[in-house]
């Protein structure tokens, strides 16, 4: 638990986090650490548990329908121990969240400005006028054109990119330490995506924010993140610096993700590589490594025992029995991993 190399308290620390809905174990033992002032990208395909991990940090799931185990520390608080009142202070105050689809994440019948001032006045004793002035400053900060007028817009009156900027302004309204971004660019046009990512990066640096950004877009992850964590079937299979994970991947799943990108100009007639098969049924987890049925390097051991997380370099951790072979295969070139499934 004690890490002597880094003396600071991390912004977010999850240990042994498990989240289940009924019998479905969606997040299955996640250990994750986000240093202050850093950005971490959590990547994985749909259903890998990345969004659930993020929401668990704010305890957004009703206790009746979900079961959370493990420990969550965020912005210096033991999240699972917070009472109702402290939890609502914590949400939006210490840690806030940006959602995937800003049109759906704003209440359609209130103006955007009202929703920002509502949040400010929820957390601080401040006059309506001052709250509005703060909202205006935030709109300027996220570079929304004619901010004064835009504060009085309803969400449907804004463009997608502007709405996401407004969402970021809302999230920053109470000066949180940690920002959780759930696929913040997925719903946006490609040209707007990069602008929003750059804005996030800039705010993170200027305000000393710690960010966790959930995405399935490796390009976006590399753009903003210091570190990348790759999730598969509710487990983190590889973590490292952005460079380590992208340049020197050791987990076959990470390799599969990297290879299935349409990178540069593809030769005419060449096919995009894909990872064969589909993610496992989380309600009926097979023993062993969850990726084994789809893995090009699968061995007998993989089907029986779950590999433990092991460091292969400082800060670079994988959960795979055959990390070295996978890495060698990746370095050997693009073709050998192509496995045809019937």
């Amino acid at each position, binding site marked *: 638990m004690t890490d002597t190399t880094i003396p600071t308290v991390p912004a977010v620390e999850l240990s042994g986090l498990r989240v289940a809905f009924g019998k479905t174990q969606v997040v299955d033992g996640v250990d994750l650490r986000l240093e202050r002032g850093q950005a971490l990208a959590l990547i994985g395909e749909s259903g890998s548990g990345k969004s659930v991990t993020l929401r668990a940090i704010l305890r957004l799931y009703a206790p009746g329908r979900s079961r959370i185990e493990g420990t969550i520390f965020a912005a210096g608080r033991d999240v699972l121990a917070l009472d109702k009142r402290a939890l609502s202070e914590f949400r939006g105050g210490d840690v806030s969240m940006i959602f995937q689809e800003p049109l759906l994440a704003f*209440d359609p019948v209130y103006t955007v400005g009202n929703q920002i001032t509502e949040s400010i006045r929820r957390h601080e004793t401040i006059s309506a006028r001052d709250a509005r002035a703060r909202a205006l400053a935030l709109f300027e900060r996220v570079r929304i054109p004619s901010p004064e007028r835009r504060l009085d817009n309803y969400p449907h009156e804004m463009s997608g990119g502007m709405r996401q900027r407004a969402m970021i302004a809302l999230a920053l309204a109470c000066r949180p330490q940690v920002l959780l971004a759930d696929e913040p660019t997925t719903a946006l046009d490609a040209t707007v995506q990069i602008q929003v990512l750059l804005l996030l990066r800039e705010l993170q640096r200027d305000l000393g924010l710690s960010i966790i950004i959930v995405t399935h877009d490796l390009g976006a992850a590399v753009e903003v993140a210091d570190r990348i964590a790759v999730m598969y079937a509710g487990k983190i299979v590889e973590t490292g610096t952005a460079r380590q994970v992208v340049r020197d991947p050791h987990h076959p799943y990470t390799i599969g993700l990297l290879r299935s990108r349409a990178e540069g100009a593809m030769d005419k007639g060449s096919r995009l590589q894909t990872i064969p098969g589909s993610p496992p049924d989380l309600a009926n987890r097979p023993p062993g490594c969850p990726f084994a049925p789809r893995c090009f390097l699968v061995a007998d051991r993989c089907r029986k025992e779950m590999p433990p997380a092991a460091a292969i370099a400082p800060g670079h951790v994988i959960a795979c029995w055959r990390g070295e072979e996978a890495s060698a295969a990746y370095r050997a070139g693009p073709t050998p991993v192509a496995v045809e499934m019937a």
Partner: protein
Amino acid sequence: MLLYILKRLVTVTPVAFGVSVVCFLLVHLAPGDPLSAVLPADATQATIDEMRAAYGFDKPLPVQYAIWLWHVLHGDLGVSIATGRPVAQEVGRAVVNSLILASVATLIGFTFGVFFGFVAGYRRNSILDRIASALSVFGVSVPHYWLGMVLVIVFSATLGWLPPTGAGPDGSGNWRPDFEHLRYIILPAVTMAVIPMGIIARTVRALVGDILGQDFVEALRAKGLSETGVFKHVVRNAAPTALAIMGLQLGYLLGGSILIETVFAWPGTGFLLNAAIFQRDLPLLQGSILVLAMFFVALNLIVDVMQTALDPRIERA
């Protein structure tokens, strides 16, 4: 906003004109001679013709319509054949009584409907939801004239707590908001409230369930709002639809209360219509149908405007 109201007013005009044509013609489509009800059986042809001319029934229909419309536009709905009193006066008094009854019923129905709807919507599939849903299904399906009679049997005949019929102790048909008159309105209003209660409860339940499932509710919680804070947003989002339904229900109650007003002998428009139909009182019938239809038009207008005020997305659409 003002422009929107003006625009809606302009679009309402042809609707109102159409309604007046239909009102006028509808009555003429019905079989039976209105004068036969008032004239003695042995009246001479000369008397009949004279009466026809006096009421204008001898002229061709379009001309009759034009004359009628002209009078209507000047606030003159004609004279009742049966009572000889001005139709406007008769209808006016009945409308007030119906409005009172319908308003009280809508208020009861809306209050309980919204309450049950929110409880059921917030506690989906719980026992409370089942009870609230059962009550609303009962409300929508029970024949209300039957329910009216059962209530009269229980609360008037057996328990003797409330008067069974009429609008007040003096039988004058002028309702006043005092305790004595309140006792008269309870049974008909409750009977009448049952259907809107059921409809509103079911709609609000669906609405609340739908709103709670939307992303923005999670976002509101994520920014630290308490459940009370979230509830305010849910109410504001549910309000336009709930109000629209309440407005429509009020409209239905104003016109569709013939059965209840007859069961409870409540001197409203339903009671009046019923009488006008059976007495073949053409001017009274035309007048009351026209007024009721105009009520619908006006209500729809008001509901539209209110919705626009509450939900900014509607104006653009």
